């Protein structure tokens, strides 16, 4: 259960090796969470030691983002492990090279399946459980890449655009159920996943994203940006004429 000051007991991290996801989970543990389920392909056999040091139990769970038919069972298995899901962090994703995607449509389609349709099946499974519980929060890691899709990474960006729209609709469908969805739109975050990408203006660290998520969960926000300045920046970007937007180098 979430308490009056925003502490929770359990965290399920979908994408159990995601650096941003782990930073969010760590923040929730520092604020009082005691059980963390790390769900990833092959399970997470070597969870970061910080969880144990902070007094939280970790559990490993097999989760394959591409195997949509297993997602309901994955959520049920997490409930079996820790009981009510207080916060579910939906953080899995892949980020390849746009040029390689363009050369290999099949790999692009597979990336899109992980980055979009995988979230649809697992997101709906999580939402059903939260609705049944009458409480809980689903944190969806979207991206500014989906706010306005760019020429330079439109395979990844379009999947994030789909995910962002899906998450917003899911949030509205859960209104009044006691459960909620928090959409998180980070900009460039330096992690293993983004190693091959050049840093963009207004970067954030995983810890800063965790700060923003923590604050969002405490209040009644539906969408948060990391860093916050990206909200007005992208309000401007959306206005940019197409001819200019198309010519952006990155």
């Amino acid at each position, binding site marked *: *259960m979430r308490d*009056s000051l925003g502490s929770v*007991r359990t965290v399920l991290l979908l994408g159990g090796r995601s650096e941003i996801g782990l930073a969010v989970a760590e923040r929730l543990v520092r604020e009082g969470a005691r059980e963390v389920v790390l769900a990833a392909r092959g399970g997470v056999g070597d969870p970061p030691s910080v969880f144990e040091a902070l007094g939280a139990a970790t559990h490993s769970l097999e989760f394959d983002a591409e195997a949509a038919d297993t997602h309901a069972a994955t959520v049920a298995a997490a409930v079996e492990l820790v009981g*009510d899901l207080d916060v579910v962090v939906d953080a899995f994703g892949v980020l390849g090279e746009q040029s390689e995607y363009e050369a290999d449509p099949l790999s692009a389609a597979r990336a899109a399946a992980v980055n979009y349709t995988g979230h649809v099946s697992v997101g709906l499974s999580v939402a059903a459980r939260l609705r049944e519980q*009458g*409480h809980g929060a689903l944190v969806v890691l979207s991206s500014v890449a989906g706010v306005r899709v760019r020429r330079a990474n439109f395979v990844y960006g379009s999947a994030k655009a789909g995910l962002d729209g899906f998450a917003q609709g899911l949030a509205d469908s859960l209104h009044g*159920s*006691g459960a909620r969805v928090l959409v998180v739109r980070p900009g460039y975050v330096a992690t293993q996943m983004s190693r091959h990408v050049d840093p963009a203006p207004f970067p954030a660290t995983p810890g800063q994203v965790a700060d923003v998520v923590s604050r969002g969960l405490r*209040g009644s926000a539906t969408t948060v940006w990391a860093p916050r300045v990206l909200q007005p920046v992208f309000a401007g970007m959306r206005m940019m004429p197409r001819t200019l937007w198309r010519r952006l180098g990155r």
Partner: protein
Amino acid sequence: MSRPTLLSGWGRTAPTAAHVVRPRTLEQAAEALAQAGPRGALARGLGRSYGDAAQAAGGLVLDCTELTGPPRLDTERQEVTAPAGTSLERIIAHLLRRGYFVPVTPGTGHVTLGGAIAADVHGKNHHADSSIGAHVRALTLLTPAGEVHRLGPDGGDTELFWATVGGMGLTGVVTEATIGVHPVETAYARVDTDRTRDLDSTLELMARTDHAYRYTVCWVDLLARGGSLGRSVLTRAHHARRADLPAPQRRDPLRHRPGAPLAAPPWAPPRLLNRWTVGAFNTAYYNAAPLRRRGQAQPVSGFFHPLDAVQGWNRVYGRHGFVQYQFVVPFGEEDVLRAVAEGLAGAGAPSFLAVLKRMGEPTPGPLSFPRPGWTLALDLPADLPGLARLLNGFDERVLSAGGRLYLAKDSRARPETVHAMYPGLSAWRATRARVDPGGVLVSDLARRLELV
């Protein structure tokens, strides 16, 4: 089934959704309870628990506020019987007209009789008369198996009776209860008021004079700086006798007409209550109180339930809501009171309406809160930065002093802390398991604190 309804406590924090039904009779309550699903069921009264005691996420909530009927006063046995959904306010109005009063009332009359027993509530007379559980002569308890138990303190299943008194609704649904009453000559309190200059003089005056009064309570200013920290307005009272009243009131001494409540505005800006506004209020309140006044006749509604004059006062904390923190520590542990007062002042925490009181004899209820000692209760805005850490630190002081937190007020403590504060918990669990082996009865409080 109906659409779920969002429920929260009086502090308006952490709402969760449940299916709500409103039984009017014991039979309807039994029927509803039998239909509870895997997410369990719970009785709810007027929702005055501050935290999550009267909500059951995803479950079935029996809103018992329509489980009412006229109170039945037995003057020979000096007791009153009423359906559990009847409010204390209604019972008090019924009794006063006939020259009687309830044995215990908390700071609001807007609680149901069943809820008052489930929380084993206390009032300004705890040091003299204990909590409401000490005055329950009989109660009817409906369990998830559909059994109806008639329970009392003097015979039969006394273990289940005391597990229910203070049991936070987790042993069954109380559908009716009989409590002792006492005769009064008037509907007024004869109040003595004193103002003290700091915490030490407050504690000294209370310790010295408490036994001479039936009702005592102390409002403490926890925002005053330096030497004035803990300055207080102490009010002590007895029921007024007819001869104590001024001539005009003496003609109709049992007249009880609490005015229609004012409504608080439906919305308040966030952070309306901050250290400056609350500090200014506290200073004004302190200065408005007389230094020393004796024998003032005050209507019981104003004396016992001053906040009932403002309907929905909990909304002034804004949309983030507030937490109430109430603990008791044994006599001799006054240092904990000082540490809490200094900790709050140091953090600039705007605690409005901090109330200090001495407690007397406890009841045998394993989850009943009161213990002999000092109890301090205070409200704090839930969005105060650093509040979780501050209160966790207080919890440790309270626990190591042999004290405890009040479950009806709690919304944020950690399970292991509460378990250590209530050593009777395992015995209580065993009793509960006897009448609810399927674990149907559950609340968000019980889940959060791992009580069941």
